[in-house]
């Protein structure tokens, strides 16, 4: 690597890749070579920058020019103007709407408000390094922590550091990581395993995916550190098969680490050895539960097993095993290098450090963010997230995916941490945040999440297998206008029993979206059941399509209706027969005068 004067970083995360960022990279390389700049300009594919709403993203360093929504045609302009003539292409720059009007052009990446408000620890290298080049990871202090641990620290010191840092499991359970490692360390060997849960099944969650795609080495380093601390010499990464880019990058990373002697026998010349193997999931959300994950690695049907025994005592193949989430591991190298006090200085009393969240739904800046624990929810949604698009009103935010609950406008000022979210009837989960506005129906939202859980239930225990299905049937009836008042009592009783008697976390948390929406939006349920209406205008069966006075009699709706339920003369007010209407919405989308509404 010689001294290049410009680095063009192009996001190679799954989101931007699906918008052809790989072709953009090719085009850059082509043009740079054509202009004879290939010794001066380095074109680099990096991991996820996080501002996925604005992808594909390209950043030119050292200026830090943040080009967003880049198209292949734009590459020519950027090369000829910026790379050759130093003229930043302002028309392609990201507009930082969170900054004061004079500073809205994102000429400097580090000044972009979206990033200034974050504290990127687990995502430190994402968007900075090329994940497929181990030297770049090393350049930014990669494998230094492993070196320090193996040459300067005893296993007990490592356990101490992780415990002191206050790091808690980032997969959703929030169990203190240091204590989990200690359980495994104290259990007799000689064979132990480190397992990484990279199954990430929550819909809308892609924190782990981004870390794996953007910085796979931090996982390898952390797992080796965990192995040293607990006495394990082998690690398994259980990664869902639906993440092909992440799998590919991890494979490359493991190979490179082995080539450089950073994985395998006698690492750094010590007598510590550590090896890693990748195991692919096969499309089951339940295999994100640690005992089902273990069963799957063992070749059995992915069904959870009773705890105790806990994996730290009896895990993969019956051996003591530490299972941690990708994001949990991603924090470990820095805890070692910067010290546990540094990590514990961030966050709240019981929830230390930072957390990565995936913002989705009705939010302007959808993408990945990392913030200190204790940050107010309002700050995340209104400031970093940029608020609700189209000026709509915020209704609720779902945290924790299908295991979590919704948080309303009344509670936006709570500091985000594990315990606060649970007290509100939700949970941190793995970090998914789906924002909802006035056009979302909360009953439909609960039904959506339950639909997912019903499909993903493994079938082992009665409450989850049968109970979630029956809850879904009740919600289906409510959204179809066939609900009765006693359905709410039925839902609550069933939810209580499913929660208290299910075998594993999937069943125990499946009723949460229902309970949470009932707690804060009971009137919406009652509107569906008693009033037979959907206030948000979502549940098709409860809506009537009506033609208003704005109708000009152009007859377009009548022509497009597939069942011929619209009557009317030219230039006259048209009318929809509600009994014949199949609510397909074709008329509404065809009307050039917005004269058709749903109510």
């Amino acid at each position, binding site marked *: 690597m010689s001294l290049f004067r410009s680095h063009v970083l192009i996001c190679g995360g799954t989101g931007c890749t699906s918008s052809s960022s790989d072709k953009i990279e090719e085009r850059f390389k082509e043009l740079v070579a054509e202009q004879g700049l290939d010794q001066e300009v380095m074109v680099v594919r990096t991991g996820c920058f996080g501002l996925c709403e604005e992808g594909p993203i390209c950043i030119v360093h050292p200026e830090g020019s943040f080009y967003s929504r880049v198209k292949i045609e734009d590459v020519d302009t950027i090369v000829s103007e910026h790379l050759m003539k130093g003229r930043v292409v302002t028309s392609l720059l990201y507009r930082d709407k969170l900054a004061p009007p004079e500073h809205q052009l994102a000429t400097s990446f580090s000044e972009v408000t979206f990033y200034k408000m974050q504290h990127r620890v687990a995502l430190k290298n994402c968007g900075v390094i090329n994940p497929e080049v181990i030297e770049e990871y090393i350049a930014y202090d990669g494998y230094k922590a492993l070196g320090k641990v193996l040459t300067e620290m005893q296993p007990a010191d490592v356990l101490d550091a992780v415990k002191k840092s206050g790091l808690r499991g980032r997969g959703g359970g929030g169990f203190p990581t240091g204590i989990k490692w200690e359980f495994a360390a104290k259990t007799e060997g000689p064979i132990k395993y480190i397992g990484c849960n990279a199954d990430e099944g929550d819909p809308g969650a892609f924190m782990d995916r981004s870390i794996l795609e953007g910085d796979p080495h931090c996982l390898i380093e952390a797992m080796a550190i965990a192995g040293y601390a607990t006495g394990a010499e082998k690690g398994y990464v259980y990664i869902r098969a639906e993440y092909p880019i992440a799998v590919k990058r991890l494979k490359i990373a493991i190979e490179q680490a082995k080539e450089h002697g950073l994985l395998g026998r006698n690492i750094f010349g010590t007598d510590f050895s550590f090896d890693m193997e990748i195991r692919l999931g096969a499309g*089951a959300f*339940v295999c994100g539960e640690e005992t089902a994950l273990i069963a799957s690695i063992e070749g059995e*049907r992915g*069904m959870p097993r*009773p705890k*105790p025994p806990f994996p730290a005592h009896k895990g993969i193949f019956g051996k003591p095993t530490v299972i941690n989430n990708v994001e949990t591991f991603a924090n470990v190298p820095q805890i070692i290098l910067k010290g546990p006090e540094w990590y514990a200085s961030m966050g709240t009393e019981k929830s230390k450090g930072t957390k990565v969240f995936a913002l989705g739904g009705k939010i302007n800046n959808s993408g990945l963010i990392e913030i200190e624990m204790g940050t107010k929810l309002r700050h995340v949604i209104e400031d970093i997230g940029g608020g609700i698009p189209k000026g709509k009103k915020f209704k609720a935010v779902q945290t924790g995916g299908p295991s979590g609950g919704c948080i309303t406008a009344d509670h936006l000022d709570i500091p985000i941490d594990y315990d606060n979210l649970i007290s509100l009837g939700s949970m941190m989960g793995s970090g998914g945040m789906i924002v909802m506005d006035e056009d979302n129906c909360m009953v439909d939202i609960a039904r959506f999440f339950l639909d997912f859980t*019903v*499909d*993903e*239930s*493994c*079938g*082992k*225990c*009665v*409450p989850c*297998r*049968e*109970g979630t*299905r*029956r809850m879904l*049937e009740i919600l289906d009836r409510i959204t179809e206008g066939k609900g009765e008042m006693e359905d709410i009592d039925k839902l609550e*009783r*069933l939810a*209580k*029993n*499913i*929660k*208290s*008697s*299910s*075998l594993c976390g999937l069943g*125990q948390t499946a009723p949460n979206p229902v309970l949470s929406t009932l707690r804060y939006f009971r009137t919406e349920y009652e509107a569906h059941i008693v009033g037979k209406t959907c206030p948000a205008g979502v549940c098709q069966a409860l809506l009537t399509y009506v033609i208003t006075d704005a109708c000009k009699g152009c007859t377009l709706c009548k022509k497009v209706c597939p069942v011929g339920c619209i009557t009317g003369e030219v230039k006259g007010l048209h009318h929809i027969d509600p009994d014949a209407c199949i609510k397909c919405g074709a008329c509404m989308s065809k009307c050039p005068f917005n004269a058709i509404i749903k109510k």
Partner: protein
Amino acid sequence: MAQVTLNGNTIHVDLPKTILQVAEEAGLFVPTFCNDKRLVPNGACRMCVVEVEGARSLVASCTTPAADGMVINTETPAVIDARKSVLELIWANHPNDCVVCDKAGQCKLQDYTYRYEVDIDAFKGAKRVSEVDQSNKFFYNDQNKCILCGKCVRVCDELQNTSAIGFSERGFHTHITHPFEEGMDKSVCVSCGNCVSVCPVGALMPKSKERFRNWEAKKVQTTCSYCGVGCQMNLIVKDNKVVDVEPVNDHSNMGLLCVKGKFGYSFIDHPDRLRKPMLKKHGVLTEVEWDEALDFVAGKIKQTRDVYGADTLAGLVSARCTNEENYLMQKLFRAGVGTNNLDHCARL
């Protein structure tokens, strides 16, 4: 010695034990579908849930180890409601045909439903519908009645070591089947019937020729006569006829049987079975009394020995006889007849 408080009473227990074991040894009733003393606890049915002070939620007593100082309650309102819920949910996916079901009277689902006064129509929704697998000669698999407790799978895996039967699909569509849904007859099933014996409901049932209600029959314990293991079994007898066999949990067989012991009882009342010895008289087989028959046999043995020598005779015994009978037979031939020509079906 540890101390545990069970429904308000403090008792001493020897650990390690599960809460279920502690409760049962103390004489308490705890309902279970998926529990079996011989199998590794599974925690699948969630009927055995109990309340433990300080726990996050109800715990399954079959899989939770009892600990010193634990305060356990087995019949609180929350526990009862959870159990009722489990039963209601099972019924939502179960045909309501106790009246004509062959398992009536010996069905755990029926018993618990009665005990907890469950509303079997609490949920009306979709039901799993499957065809009954009749491909096995001795028993059938009616998945419409299966409650997915998993005991059949575990018996076949852990005790029988055949692994012919397993779970397929997931969630609401989970069902018990054989690999690739090819039916029992195409699997490695050896028809031992242990899955049938362990099924708590009427999903895995023997194909009996007689229809009977379990309260019309009595149980007679005996030793299986087919081989030398000496499995203990109960003959189910109605009107002096054996209509079914169930294993007894004893040292020799641990509650397991093989296809012969479980299903091979039809010879007892078979019309072709000889009930009296027969002798050919004037070319026709005629029934005679035992004295006449034995005299004839003894006479022929002596005659053959005297004319042709003792070694032209051989005694064949079998596992169908008891050890004592086999001992006497070989004594008879060695000492009485004077030959060492003896053999046994097991060697052949």
